């Protein structure tokens, strides 16, 4: 126990080999007009308007970027309502009733490979911007800003590590459509003119490595390799992935671009493929419904804008004997807990986890040091906690609390079950 402990039981076996259920035709979809990054928006449709799949309905404003709001379905605008966003805030949503025709907007046209090959960086960035492609690993950061870097990029890393327990959506995505990943990677490499491509995957996921190694044969002319990384948490944290896949250490506070590296999540790569190949915004995504309080855990290919309530129903509902339910959107280590299940699926939603709420009884800290031994950014959670309790700002600064990535490992490993991650957040807030 008093040791570096970074293995997190992953529980993926519950769902990873289950086929992906398709649930792309909900009765209604709710498209969020705001998000955690974008508070302001403009909307061009009204109640009663007919919209087509892929039609631009308005624009979100995130300050340093703007992003179009797409309809992910064809149908009729029914009105506006408030729904829960997976980041835990109530947002304004537009309701669209499905007409089950999947009528594409006339802008949604395929690009032949020969056209894509001739596209310049500027054109690719423009397509990615217009399709509102964002980082789907959970960050939601607009991908076009990343692609538009003026730094010299030598390597593009596709992050397929998926180190959060219970999640298997990226796993299913790679198994179901590996060629999308390779094509997406090819386009990204073309855009930033990178020589090397790396697909980082956990070495314990032998099934994925098999699939990827078969697929890589078709892309021999590109300099792509598969990096097999150790199975520990948080291997999927970008900097950890780069360190282990490339041997490049990125210090806190600097961007990977400055070191010639660019990282994308697998789902993002697939979205970039869709954007360039089909001119399509993110309308569907792989999602895992899992947890110990859901009757039937499964992977679902789901339409963006679906209500989580429908997905729960699709998984046979909550277990009857579960009294207190902890509904989490995102992984169990970093995800957000929801106050109800009236939540919309947005492009960054990787999973919906339903747990029977567990009370962890806190004991006094015995200073065992597991948190310090395990911390991926090498700070000292227990000492930060004590500094916070003393209200000691100077000490918090010296202990570099702002380096914390809130991965949750300190609270996970704690011998006394103290919620250290919470103290890290409070410490950051105290520093301001």
């Amino acid at each position, binding site marked *: *126990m*008093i*040791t570096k*402990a970074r293995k*997190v*039981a992953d529980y993926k076996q519950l769902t990873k080999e289950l086929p992906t259920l398709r649930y792309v035709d909900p009765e209604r979809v709710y498209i969020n007009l705001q998000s955690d990054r974008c508070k302001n928006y403009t909307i061009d449709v009204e109640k009663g308007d007919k919209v087509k799949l892929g039609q631009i309905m308005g624009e979100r404003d995130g300050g340093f970027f703007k992003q179009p709001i797409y309809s992910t379905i064809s149908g009729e605008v029914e009105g506006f309502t408030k729904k829960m966003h997976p980041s*835990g805030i109530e947002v304004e949503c537009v309701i669209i009733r499905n007409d089950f025709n999947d009528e594409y907007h006339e802008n949604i046209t395929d690009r032949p490979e020969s056209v894509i090959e001739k596209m310049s960086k500027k054109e690719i960035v423009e397509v990615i911007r217009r399709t509102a492609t964002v980082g789907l690993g959970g960050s939601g950061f607009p991908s076009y800003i990343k692609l538009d870097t003026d730094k010299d990029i030598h390597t593009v890393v596709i992050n397929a590590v998926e180190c959060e*327990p219970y999640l298997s959506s990226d796993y299913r995505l790679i198994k179901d459509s590996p060629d999308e990943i390779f094509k997406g990677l090819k386009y990204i490499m073309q855009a930033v003119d990178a020589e090397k491509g790396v697909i980082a995957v956990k070495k314990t996921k032998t099934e994925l490595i098999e699939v990827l190694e078969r697929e890589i044969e078709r892309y021999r002319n590109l300099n792509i390799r598969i990096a097999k990384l150790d199975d520990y948490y948080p291997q999927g944290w970008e900097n950890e992935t780069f360190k282990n896949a490339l041997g490049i250490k990125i210090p806190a506070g600097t961007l990977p671009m400055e070191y010639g590296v660019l990282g994308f999540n697998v789902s993002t790569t697939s979205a970039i493929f869709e954007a360039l190949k089909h001119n399509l915004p993110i309308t569907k995504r792989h999602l895992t419904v899992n947890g110990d309080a859901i009757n039937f855990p499964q992977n679902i290919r789901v339409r963006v804008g679906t209500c989580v309530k429908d997905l729960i129903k699709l998984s046979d509902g*909550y277990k009857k004997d*579960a*009294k*207190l*339910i*902890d*509904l*989490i959107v*995102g992984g*169990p*280590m*970093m*995800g*957000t*807990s*929801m*106050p*109800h*299940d009236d939540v919309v699926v947005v492009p960054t939603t990787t999973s919906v*986890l339903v*747990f029977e*709420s*567990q009370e*962890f009884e806190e*004991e*006094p800290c*015995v*200073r*065992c*040091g*597991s948190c*310090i*031994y395990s911390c991926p950014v*090498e700070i*000292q959670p*227990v*000492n930060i906690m004590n500094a916070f309790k003393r209200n000691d700002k100077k*000490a918090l600064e*010296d*202990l570099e609390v702002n380096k914390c990535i*809130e991965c949750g490992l300190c*609270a*996970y*490993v*704690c*011998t*006394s*079950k103290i*919620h250290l*991650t*919470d103290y890290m*957040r409070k410490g950051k807030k105290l520093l301001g």
Partner: protein
Amino acid sequence: MEFVTKNAPHLRRPNASVIRMMRDVVIALSPLVLFALVVHGLTALWILLVAVGSMVATEYIYYQIIDKMNGEKFKINNKSFTVYNFSVLVSGLIYGLILPDEIPLVVVAIGGVVGVFLAKLIFGGMGQNIFNIAAFARVFVTLSFGTALVYAENIDSVLGATPLGALSANLFDASVVESYSYWTMFSGIGLPGSLGETSALLILAGGLYLFLRKSFDIFVPLTYIGTVFLISLGVMFTQDLGIWYPLTHLLSGGLMFGAIYMATDPITIPTTRPGRIYFAFGLGILTFIIRFFGDLPEGVVFAILIMNMFVPAIDYHKWAQSKFTFRSVSIFAVVVLISVISILVGVHYVG
């Protein structure tokens, strides 16, 4: 059915708890308890019972009074019941095992009560204490009732003195130690000494168990024992002694026991890995200094108490690092070099 919201992470490590950690120490100590009972018979039983009983009772009564003062109703299993987490049991067992075999039971009880009260409870209970409770109680007993602590005449040996005691009286006299074979010193069979400190074999077995269960930081005992061994090895070479000299330092006295069960108590040692290594190194240096230059034959408990006081300094946020850096390693290397050389010079003049 209701929804609850919580902050991430939503999972906790299974099989990690304070109870498990403390229980592991009790399990690791149990062969030593059995050994003490076999060798010393009823004496050991009484000493251990009184040591554990006095400590547990003090903590129990203390928390009953605290609860009473907070206006709680009296319950056998009171609100701040702390005995369940084994921590006071561990302190009591360690305290009992480092006591000599001929000690009045009333002295044991006084030591136990004072130890738990002054070293643990008034600091705020488990996790808050600065000093190792067992070491504090033992030192309290040594300083207050020094004449009451006698090691029994040993069955096999006419000397009746512990090897270290003999060594302390005659600094480099090999003949004193020759009356004990290495096997005697390693197994502890027929060796005079404190109840649980004599059998290096069983102590190491307990240490192995704790290591396999990851219930302590193996680097602390390794550094501690390693430091003492290296310095006595240095003395051996400079004073032209045999290998018996470092081995006696290792195998007799409380070094093994202290290094594995007392210096690893996480509550009273630094929190970072480098800090723990500096701490253990300091323990090694101090133990040797007290053994060699001091008046007492044994230095482990004193070294632990002295180093406990440096813990906040080692953990100070201005310089505490969770990993070794080039700078910290070089400073540490210089400190090691200086302290070893000055000890060897000192040994040269005293010897």
